[in-house]
């Protein structure tokens, strides 16, 4: 098994009508053994910007800590929150700095930009950005997630429908992956509120 499959992860982000949703699984494992079933993969940068980091757990924790540091400095200098597009460029350049000894992470970034327009993107381990208008996926279950999202996604969904869709896509995909699952964690973000929900999934 490759280094990206050492801990196991599943991440997906979807765009709705003036809102977005980002979801992850909750398993932390060491190859086939499950260590924890409440691992946080998605973190808040500010109220309208979330980042999920899949891949090697130690690298995702370290990368997250460095990003928080850089964002806090930005906030002090610029006296405002970073836009999602800017933040994505920051992540991409930080990853490319380590081109010949990379962080083994694939980030999924989701946020509300100017005029609360939803923005999602994902990157490979060395910072190649992939912007999408509908959905982005990452992790060991990514192939199943692509299939599930492709068939379940509709444009311009409201927050409640978006939550249902992303939850079904996540749960059905991780049920076909040995290394991810054991529950789900979904954030649905609209211009006025952030709703965090835990999904009840198969624990095998």
């Amino acid at each position, binding site marked *: *098994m490759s280094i990206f*499959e050492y801990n*196991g992860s599943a991440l997906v982000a979807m765009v709705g009508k003036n809102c977005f949703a980002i979801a992850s699984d909750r398993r932390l*494992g060491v*190859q*086939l*053994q*499950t260590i924890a079933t409440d691992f946080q993969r998605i973190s808040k940068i500010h109220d309208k910007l979330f980042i999920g980091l899949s891949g090697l757990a130690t690298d995702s924790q370290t990368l997250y800590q460095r990003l928080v540091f850089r964002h806090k400095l930005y906030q002090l200098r610029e006296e405002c929150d970073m836009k999602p597009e800017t933040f994505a460029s920051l992540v991409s350049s930080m990853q490319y700095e380590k081109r010949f000894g990379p962080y083994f992470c694939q980030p999924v970034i989701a946020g509300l930009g100017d005029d609360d327009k939803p923005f999602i993107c994902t990157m490979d381990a060395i910072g190649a950005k992939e912007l999408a208008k509908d959905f982005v996926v990452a992790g*060991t279950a990514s192939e199943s997630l692509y299939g599930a999202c492709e068939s379940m996604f509709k444009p311009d969904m409201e927050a409640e429908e978006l939550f249902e869709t992303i939850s079904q896509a996540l749960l059905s995909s991780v*049920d*076909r*992956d*040995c*290394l991810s699952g054991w529950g789900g964690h979904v954030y649905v973000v609209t211009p006025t509120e952030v709703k965090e929900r835990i999904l*009840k*999934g*198969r*624990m*095998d």
Partner: protein
Amino acid sequence: MLDTTALESFPSLISHGINVAGEISAPPSFQLPNSNDFDGFVKETIQMVKPAKGTTTLAFIFKEGVMVAADSRASMGGYISSQSVKKIIEINPYMLGTMAGGAADCQFWHRNLGIKCRLHELANKRRISVTGASKLLANILYSYRGMGLSVGTMIAGWDETGPGLYYVDSEGGRLKGNRFSVGSGSPYAYGVLDSGYKYDMSVEEASELARRAIYHATFRDGASGGVASVYYVGPTGWKKLSGDDVGELHYHYNPVTPSTVEQEMVEAAGP
């Protein structure tokens, strides 16, 4: 000498020695491929066919008989190829075999063993013992040792001497015992099984122990999951006791209690 009775797909239609003078029938063989590096080719083939032993199976003897249980997941690396594989194979009405390793290997050789057991019954007018059946299988697997078969099975049954349980594997090993668990989830199953085991259990207690052991293995092991099947082998033969979906078993053992709003606010203000 390899046992090839099962590999010949059809008997020879030509009767030897009647009209053909002096011809000796050739022993069964198959064509070898043309290749520069035959040894390397054989090694690669064995690696290609070698499946992962991602599974949890267990069996134990207790006062009332033998309890056999298994999960039902088939995995190829990280991908789950099936959640509904039958891993407990019914060799005959009073003997069961468990599947771990290569599905094709286990299914084929268990069926072959069933045939041999029936032939023994017809030839000797009495049922074969579990000792005898496991020895038949072990000898066959030993003759194929090193050729890439992957079988980690337990033969459980009830014969004239009472309950019998043997572990047989494709390396040629055969062990008699009271408690076995085979597969990638076996360490987790052993933990639950060893701490809850008592010889004087009733059938209900034993089946609940077996089910719990499989459930705990599916929770911790990524390569085990699906349905926990439990079979009981008693004096009148085997009987399937339960087949519970492990996803539902989790919430049966750990019911979800909705927390009140006040509790949530306290947690949010914590460190």
